[in-house]
């Protein structure tokens, strides 16, 4: 028995998404005027997308069937299983989590403080933590975000989000 490849799994997820889009297409209100109803274009594109996803699914299934047990799986330098996957994508996951945390705390910290904390956290997470590195990272964070903030605030006259904790900046 051959196991489903990643492409097969992705194509199934896409087909489910297409199903959702088809349903959502029918929820679009029709104002009953104009030659092209607002739902027509999204519905058309959804059906086209569904067609492509069906082709992708069939291609993946055929590729899976053509695979013999002797075929070697593509070489991936990560351990199998969920923990292996998590370890492999650990850096992007943490970076994204930090970024989302920055966005969530933006109303409290504001751009200058929040941005500095984010750069410092990213640098320390990715670059390692030693007393010397921490000082360097702190300096890089303060200088880079400070320069950016000053450039946008005073140079480009953009009113960047300010925080509740430090309303002045």
């Amino acid at each position, binding site marked *: 028995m051959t196991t489903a490849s990643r492409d097969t799994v992705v194509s199934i997820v896409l087909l489910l998404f297409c199903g959702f889009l088809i349903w959502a297409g029918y929820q679009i209100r029709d104002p009953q005027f104009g030659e092209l109803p607002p739902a027509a274009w999204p519905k058309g594109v959804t059906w086209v997308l569904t067609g492509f996803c069906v082709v992708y699914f069939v291609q993946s299934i055929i590729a899976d069937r053509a695979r013999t047990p002797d075929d070697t799986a593509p070489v991936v330098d990560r351990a199998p299983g969920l923990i292996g996957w998590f370890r492999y994508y650990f850096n*992007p996951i943490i970076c*994204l989590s930090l970024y989302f945390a920055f966005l969530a705390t*933006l109303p409290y910290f504001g751009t200058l403080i929040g941005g500095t904390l984010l750069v410092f956290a990213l640098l320390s997470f990715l670059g390692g933590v030693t007393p010397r590195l921490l000082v360097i990272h702190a300096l890089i964070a303060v200088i880079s975000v400070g320069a950016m903030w000053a450039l946008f605030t005073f140079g480009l006259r953009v009113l960047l989000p300010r925080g509740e904790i430090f309303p002045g900046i």
Partner: protein
Amino acid sequence: MIIENVLTAVSELATFKTLFLMTIGAMAGLLAGAIPGFTIAMAIVLTLPFTFGMEPSQGVATMIGVYVGGLSGGLMSGILIGIPGTPSSVATTFDGFPMARNGDPGFALGLGVWSSFFGGIIATILLVAIAPQLAKVGLEFQPWDYFALIFFALTVTASLAGDNMIKGLISGALGLIIACVGEDDINGVQRFAFGNDFLGEGFAFLPVLIGLFAFSQLMSDVRDTASARKSLTDMGDVRVRIEHRRAITTIFSDWINLVRSSLIGVFTGVLPAAGSAISNILAYDQAKKASPTPEKFGTGHPGGIIAPEAANNATAGGALITMMALGIPGDIVTAVMLGALLIHDVIPSPAFISEQPTIAYAIFIAFFFANFLVLILQTGALRGFVMVTRVRMYVLASIILVYCGIGVFSLNNITNDMWTLAIFGVIGYVMRTLKFPLAPMILGVVLGPIAERWLSRSLALSTDVTEFVTHPWSLFFLIASLFSMGFSFYQKDRGKKVWALWYAPLLMLALTVPLFMMGGMVRPVLAGLMIVWAAWMLIKLPGNARSIRAA
């Protein structure tokens, strides 16, 4: 009239502020191009937030500076360390790096720098000559033709995804879906919003673009801790003097290669979505085939540097031709420029050059001037590149990540755009990981609303769908779309399978139908010539088929 437009555009550009901005842009492009892992598209999307507050011509001039700089910067790292700074310099490394290792790095850099310059100048000449003429053709277009043109652009984009054509098509269709979210432009009805305010506002194009391209690229760059902590290069102290005179003499002695490669670059740029990543390899391949010493390619042959570098810079000119004449982005970079122009309420279309001559001519002049600027900067700032490539990737990535957020916020001054950026950063990263090409999705997002608008206008004029095949230009683009969908299969089987021999003559014969329908003098004559050529290919077909079967 033309002289007046040129003078007005020159007076707009010849200010200290614009020249300074262009210089900064070109420098930023050169640095971004020199850093392996960064792309020109990423450099240009990061420049965007600064251009919002500028005059349209200033903003576009700055972006052109980045664009030309990025195209030229890639050759530095490609020649000196063997890692192309951008995909547009991949073929440059084939001969540039061996030449540098053979003890001739100054000559290799000279060839790269001057080929880029000459390629850019040839492209400028073609841009100025072709864009207004193509725009005149574009004025013949009716809504049906526009819709078919955009359909063609989307199919070409997807077909260029190579082996992953189906993934390219899915990516393009997903881009069209993303563009549907929010309020519909025509009727003001909310689509795919589900009562949610965030979705109801729709996704602004630029946060989507920066998320998909820059944000996801940064995530990819830091995935592996060890490589993220390394300096970008271990070049040591590079003391190279660019050999200008020797390089220029060699390029002039190989002028056929230079002109051919530049034409390949321009032509590739004109095609929607076929950018410099493709043109440099095509030009290298043709230079090798045409050379009397093809066996020397790959060992440090000057022709192997001239071809890709001339082609990749010339591609920019080709992409600008399509954007300015038809309002269709030739590649990701011109898609960003299109977005930037739209922010300034400037809508590129066939009428663009006649209605907005100052901006149009400013683009011509900026592109011409950017090539000189980059030549000067490149010559003087080699040590600066070396310093930049010593920075560790994680430092750059962390700072740019925050910069992306701040830059996106400055677009509309709403934090929703920052969330959009992060969400599309995740989507972009997932797509990269699953090997879905991002370019079709970006073009889907850009072209989707335009296509829908033209479709709506077509149907408002007539509900008869046969109009799409009775209008010659529409039929022309629909036929071209049909064949472009089979292009990747043709490319794969060319010279190997008999069916591929039918592709070119059938395409030519099919295209003669709309050409005859257009009437006039030139086009039917052109169609007649195409019939003769196709007939010649069909006569030779049995012989070619036999040799393929024998092989």
